[in-house]
């Protein structure tokens, strides 16, 4: 699980162009949206693409994203349970 979380942090940084942020800056349970990383609505959509591209997970309803992307922790749990890649 730890390896997956590290991988997710790296992929989030790359996919969302978070240039001045490093893996160490992102805590597992920090909220991804809101103040923390300053992610916005396009980032949320981009994370949906990331789930599909890297882990083969297609969300049935994009609104599920709100729960899944709360933190790296919740993302990792979801990916571990649903990945097809």
């Amino acid at each position, binding site marked *: 699980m730890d390896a997956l979380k590290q991988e997710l942090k790296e992929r989030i940084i790359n996919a969302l162009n978070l240039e001045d942020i490093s893996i160490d800056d992102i805590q597992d349970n920090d909220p991804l949206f809101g103040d923390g990383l300053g992610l916005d*609505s*396009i980032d949320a959509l981009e994370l949906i*693409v990331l789930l599909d591209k890297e882990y083969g997970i297609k969300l049935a309803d994009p609104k599920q994203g709100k729960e899944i992307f709360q933190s790296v922790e919740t993302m990792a749990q979801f990916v571990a349970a649903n990945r097809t890649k």
Partner: protein
Amino acid sequence: MAVFIHDTNIISPLGFSTDDNFQKILSGKSAIEKVFINDKIGSVYAGKINDELFNNHFQSINADFKGSRIEKLLIAALSPVVEKNPIKDDSVLILSTTKGNIAALANNNLSGAFIDQLAKNINSYFGFNTEPIVVSNACTSGVVAISLAKRFIEIEQFTNAYVVAVDELTPFVVSGFQSFQAMSNEPCKPYDASRTGVNLGEAAVAVFVSNDDRTESIQILGDANINDANHISGPSRTGEGLFLSIEKALNEANIESNQIDYISAHGTATLFNDEMEAVAFNRLNLQNVPTNSLKGYFGHTLGASGLLETVITIESLKNNVLIPSFGYQKQGTTQQINIITKKEQKALKTALKTASGFGGSNSAMILVKNS
């Protein structure tokens, strides 16, 4: 100096003339249906011009022309307008489009996708003696193009302009909107409580604008194009840019909100756009003005939408008829606005056309019937 819109023409799934389009709308017909895009995307609800019907129609305009589909659409749109208003030395072509011939990229043809080249081809086809002006301003392009025509005529840069607008339904655009989760899986419902997003569409439109005052002309009384300065893809929650655009247009036209008889709004049927428009209209005390979105009839025709919907707005004014907002049943915006639900004969003189688009763009234009 007063500037007017005279002849118009529409090429859309509902017909190949303004009259055909308006008659179909009056009879409650929508162009939205299941359209096959490609093997990967499959089918989506959209408005698509029937190629067989269009090609037959185009034969009667020019049997020999061999160019791209988008050029044919533009030529078909503009030809009748030019026939009625022969081009003069100072006439200028103004083209509005978001993607131009973007379909060329799928065939690895980069040079074929340059928008200025598309404009040049149409320019030389019709024999304009001036350089065309091309505006690409997301979904407000069509209204911005008329705004530019009016402003340049006012400062006497030229006396008349042929404003044309076009965008095609392409996998390029469909795939992009799908990545935005912005597309509805059913026919779109602007302003409705159960709306789930856009349907895309395509059209080519042409209008003739000049400082000539003719009997059937519609005057462009005021216009403004103000940015939200908020977000590149989401509208301002307070409808700031749209509010300012309408306010400035009203000021320029020297009229009050209560003199507007009808609003032809943007209404894409996304949650945020429709909500934002309702906020902006309420801020200006326009919540009781009969309002519709025409996107339930055509889909969202992107760079053509501003001009397409302006032409239908003009037909409403000329025929004194309010057109129902296709797809609407129940209030779906937090703030109430007066969505037209039934066709109604009513004396109409002044209309407000609004548009909004990616990049935080907004446009507002006041049209008045001088009769």
